[in-house]
């Protein structure tokens, strides 16, 4: 299996051969930052296109089909339009907080994005509390959304922000607990090690029932966390027109929009890493030939493919279910998911202690 570590190693050595150590590190930081941002933008564009196509097929429509073959250039055209649009100055807003909010949201999602192990050796931040860091940075996004709703000085926005505050803080618990279940199982918080451990079999298969329950809860809570249907109450368009980003225009709105799609990717990426083996190919013990064939598929494709499956499931939710009401949403979390999650954690501990897993 191709190890991207070879490439990064080579670049590192090349830089160090003619630059002093600090400068080389600095250049590498800039390069990585650039790569991340480019990757971020490209993935967002692909996701926007995918969402429009998927939703179109669900709805017996064709979807974008005019710009480029099968409408593939459509989202690039949309991005260019968004970039050139005027950012409308609104009276009676808290100018500083209003402008700060979209950046908070986008920074949180870029930071979380940077934590993901995309392929073998292609991993930006990898340290022993990787998951802890990921949960921490992805939560910063709530602050941005609350700020956006508060600073807009608009009643719809405020209701949207209050809803999302209540919703995200609640579902953060479920995400945290279901991730914790897997941390208990793997015994580490380092993402690379978690992936390595799944070489023998993905956690969702090896972890028995508790891992599967954790996966289901994670996908539900992750959907809620990204404010997507059926949990899209903060921006419920038929109730609050657009919720917390009602007053935003131009690229400021674009940031919220990008962040929404990238958060979906991050949620899918984490689900992939924790439950579906990350970039690890599918190995079935005893089937040597099959395993070899699987190894020929590049790790990047494995990761992207698994993410795509999870993202498709999340989109499927959105385009099928009606929206929940705020009290039902909180009931679901506090009365069902949280207790199930706690029991599940206990179950996982039992599984690990008595070595009941595969």
């Amino acid at each position, binding site marked *: 299996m191709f190890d991207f570590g070879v490439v990064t190693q080579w670049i590192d050595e090349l830089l160090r051969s003619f630059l002093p150590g600090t400068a080389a590190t600095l250049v590498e930081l800039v390069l990585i930052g650039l790569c991340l941002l480019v990757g971020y933008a490209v993935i967002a564009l692909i996701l926007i296109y995918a969402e429009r196509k998927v939703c179109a097929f669900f709805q017996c429509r064709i979807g974008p089909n005019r710009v480029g073959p099968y409408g593939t250039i459509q989202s690039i055209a949309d991005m260019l339009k968004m970039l050139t649009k005027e950012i409308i100055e609104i009276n009676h807003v808290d100018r500083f907080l209003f402008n700060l909010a979209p950046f908070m949201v986008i920074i949180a999602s870029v930071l979380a994005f940077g934590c993901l192990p995309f392929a073998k050796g292609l991993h930006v931040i990898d340290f022993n509390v990787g998951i802890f860091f990921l949960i921490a940075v992805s939560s910063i996004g709530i602050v941005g959304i609350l700020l956006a709703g508060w600073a807009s000085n608009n009643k719809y926005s405020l209701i949207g922000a209050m809803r999302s505050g209540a919703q995200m803080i609640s579902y953060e618990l479920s995400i945290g607990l279901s991730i914790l279940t897997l941390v208990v199982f793997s015994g580490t918080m380092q993402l690379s090690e978690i992936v390595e451990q799944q070489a023998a079999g993905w956690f969702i298969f090896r972890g028995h029932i508790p891992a599967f329950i954790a996966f289901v809860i994670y996908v539900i809570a992750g959907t809620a966390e990204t404010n997507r249907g059926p949990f899209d109450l903060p921006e419920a368009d038929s109730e609050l027109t657009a919720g917390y980003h009602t007053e935003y225009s131009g690229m400021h709105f674009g940031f919220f929009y990008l962040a929404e799609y990238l958060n979906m990717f991050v949620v899918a990426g984490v689900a992939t890493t924790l439950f579906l083996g990350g970039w690890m190919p599918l190995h079935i013990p005893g089937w040597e030939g099959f395993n070899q064939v699987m190894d020929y598929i590049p790790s990047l494709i494995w990761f992207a493919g698994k993410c795509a499956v999870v993202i498709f499931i999340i989109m499927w939710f959105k385009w099928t*279910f009606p929206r929940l*009401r705020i009290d039902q949403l909180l009931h679901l979390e506090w009365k069902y998911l949280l207790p199930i999650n706690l029991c599940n954690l206990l179950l996982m501990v039992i599984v690990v202690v008595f070595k009941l897993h595969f």
Partner: protein
Amino acid sequence: MELIENIKHIAPDASVEEGKIPTITVPPTHYRQVAEELRNNPNLSFDFLICMTGCDWGDSLGVISLLQSTVHEHKVFLKTYTTNRENPELPTVSDIWGTANLNEREVFDFLGIRFINHPDMRRLFLRTDWVGYPLRKDYDASESINPVRLYSDDTLDTTPTYEATPEGEISEKENILFEDDEYVVNIGPQHPATHGVLRFRVSLEGEIVKKVDVNCGYIHRGIEKLCETLTYPQTLAMTDRLDYLAAHHNRHALCLCIEDALGIEVPERVKYIRTIMDELQRLSSHLLFWSSLCMDMGALTAFFYGFRDREKVLDIMEETTGGRLIQNYNTIGGLMADIHPDSIRRIKELIKYLPPMLKEYHEVFTGNIIAQERLKHIGILTRENAISYGVTGPAGRASGWSCDVRKHTPYGVYDKVDFKEILYTEGDSFSRYMVRMDEIVESIHILEQLVDNIPAGDYAVKTPAIIKLPEGHYFRSVEASRGEFGVYIESRGDKYPYRMKFRSPCLTLVSVVDQLTKGNKIADLIAIGGTLDYVVPDLDR
């Protein structure tokens, strides 16, 4: 007649004019007393106010209300008037019939009659700074008096109300709608879920709705005023533009009313085709209801399913009438054109096509746990309130009130076809939803019976070149997609109507929004609005 005997007994000084529907005229001093008696006397029990019409009779201004008893099924016109044109005042009946509340505001808006003890004497449709009362015959419509104003209208948190002392002195008071520290949010006039330009002012306590104040008039086109300057055939064009999802029903009602007044009997073929078209229209309207309710509740995919199937209905109608939304098909004495030869085949295809689709709808939406949780036990309208507020149509039938005009006073060929009147008793959002879904099935059933049996014959009878209705007042109603749509015509024997009033089913639907949503969440307000399914051009007229 027993009814007239009874009425004469309770109101000796009232003059009773006999006719198909008797008319009682009472002076304002006894108006309330007679109204109460009509409502509460068990032999009369006129509990349903169908239609309240304000009218300027030249020497007097007044109100004529059509009352119906849901127990005895009899009808009566109750008329009162005042000769004071400077400060016309009449007692209110809004505490006797809930629907009178908005209707009296409408009368105040158009004729300037102030209703004493009415809790909320604001204008209903026009701006607060509008000068004059348009439906008065001496109204000056010149543009210098009411120019197009380029500033927005003030929104008031208080409303005037007029109270009378026992000595008969009138004093003006203020009712407070919203306190200063209430969190009042505008839902509309530009809002995706109000189905048009309707504005709710909603007072919120967190997510919970405390009070809803309906502000209408954003799409008021003065159709009733316009009709007074149009000949009868010309007025037909206006009806399609009221509730555009019940264009056929509306026009059917007006045609029936005029044909009745003229004594025209239309050929059987016309009756069949009109009934078929009415049911197709009902199908298209209920399919749209399903789609938009799903969209309001966030199920966006379902929206497209409904529209896909509604397209098939519209295609059939387009083939015959040439129109998809505004069809202009019925005329006085018949139809504009004969039914298209292909239509029969296509209607049969539709009858085969729809049932599996309905099954899909139920799988996608009705059976969904989220949808059920959001609709069941939410926004309960009791039968009493449904009758008092005149909430007819599917919303009324969901509360257990048998109010289907097709059953009670059949028109077209509804007396010849077999169909069920769908009744639910819960009165919640879910039963309002289910009534419509079941009515789709019934409509298909009616179409099935009619489509092969259209008798041969003319598609219209010859009518005089200039249509003049004999002097008198006439009322006819049909079962439109959203409830009873009625037409009231007052004629002085001219070729123009003296007063034409449309009884809009949607105005009554909107009048119950406040009581249905109180204490529920914002999301419920949207779902309740969706299941009531009002169409704003119909209520604004």
